[in-house]
């Protein structure tokens, strides 16, 4: 969400740069943000599994034991390949 409200840098307090290379500095920001979002996603998946198990809709260990049917397996392979290309796209560029 963009609220338009950000911490205002005051004199003597610009956003500090800790690393010599500003690109690496930004990279750590991205890694932190991704780590936060992944933590939230993991927690949400855990909540879903526990809610479903509590309702009897999901047996304990069902996700780990699940073998995708062939059609779903193909779709999931394609999806993971697309995901990998999206995330690491910059490595394939000149």
């Amino acid at each position, binding site marked *: 969400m963009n609220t338009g*409200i950000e911490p205002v840098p*005051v004199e003597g307090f610009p956003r500090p740069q800790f*690393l010599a290379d500003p690109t690496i500095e930004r990279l750590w920001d991205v890694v*932190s943000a991704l780590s*936060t979002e992944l*933590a939230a996603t993991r927690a949400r998946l855990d909540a879903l599994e526990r809610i479903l198990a509590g309702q009897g809709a999901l047996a304990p260990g069902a996700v780990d034991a699940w073998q995708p049917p062939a059609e779903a397996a193909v779709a999931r392979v394609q999806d993971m390949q697309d995901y990998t290309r999206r995330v690491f796209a910059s490595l394939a560029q000149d």
Partner: protein
Amino acid sequence: MNAVVQSPLPASPDATPADTAAAPRQLPLGTLPQPWHTIGRHAALAQLSHDERSRLDAAAHLNHFLAQQVVPAMRQRFEQAAAAKPPATRDEAWALLETDPRFAVWSRLRRGSMEARQRAAFEAAFRQREALAAACRDVVAAAGTLELDPDLTPPAYLADTHAHLMPGGYLASFGDDDVTAGAAYEASVYSVVPGRSGPYSDGAGRALARWIRTRFPSFSPRRILDLGCGVGLNTCAVAQAFPEAEVIGVDAGAGMLRYAAARAASLGITNVRWVQADIEHVPARLGPVDLAYTAIVLHETSHEALKNVFRRCHERLAPGGLTLHVEQPAYGDRPWFEQCMRDWDGRYNNERFWSHLYELDLRQELAGAGFAPARTFEDAVSAVPWNTDPRAPGRMEDYGRTGNWQVVGAWRDPA
């Protein structure tokens, strides 16, 4: 500085913390951060979605990891380097620390975790600002405890600094009934501490009240002034500890006070008036008080403001009254590494008065404001644990984030 009892304090019995049976229970997690959902509930509290809570929790865990797992190795490298070339000043200690490449990454991530928590809490409060305003409006009107001053010119140091990266700062307001700043403040502070100050984030207020009861059991203030009360986290704890007293919470931020009034009313606390004013110019109409205190506020004020606040405390105290100020301990002659860790907020967390405050001798400042030097004192004070003990074995100091404070105070001469 030695955080030891100095005259005129009597000896302290080893008090046990008071437990409030009706209060929410935090989880038995030892030193780990309390998840956000264990926060104490009331009608004004922002409602956070699952992912909003998770983002705050993830940032708290990152900070916990940085404090517990990264700082010890950083300290070891610093001390090795310092043994070869001992720093003579804190600036030299900083220069030495900054030669450690992992300090740079540690700082980047620590700053990032502060930004993330402030932003997540603010965004959650901001998106529901209309619902929060509506929820608070009637509660505040019914309570009749809020006294705003639309003509107040807030101090510039509050207006142009977004302290500890708080979006919009203490004075942010998005409408006549807006409580966004207050709601965001309480939501973020629970994550920043995280949870160590109890479900209601009022550890400093409870510590202050317990300290008074322990040291001066016969002191029973009838009128109490809380300067820089913000959303009243500590004010409410003091009001609950002295239910017969009239407590006056003073702050410059209307949004903070609207939230404070709604929060207190929702928690059933009725003995607090919430008055909008500049703490450097506490209105004389508020009358004399028996106790005038600040709780973790002085580092948000300039040195000039601090002098004025101490003068106001002296002026407003009735004869025989007490002034108390709870803050992080002064740097004094603490080891250089600890000083740098404590000073980090002053450099990198938008705390523009931080470094200077902890260099001051606050007893001397109180004497300068009119208190008799022999009647000033200082002592150590710790957060009153809720169901965890801040001094438990294995708990490591997270400088500036752990509830180990100092209290500096003075008695006004009797008439």
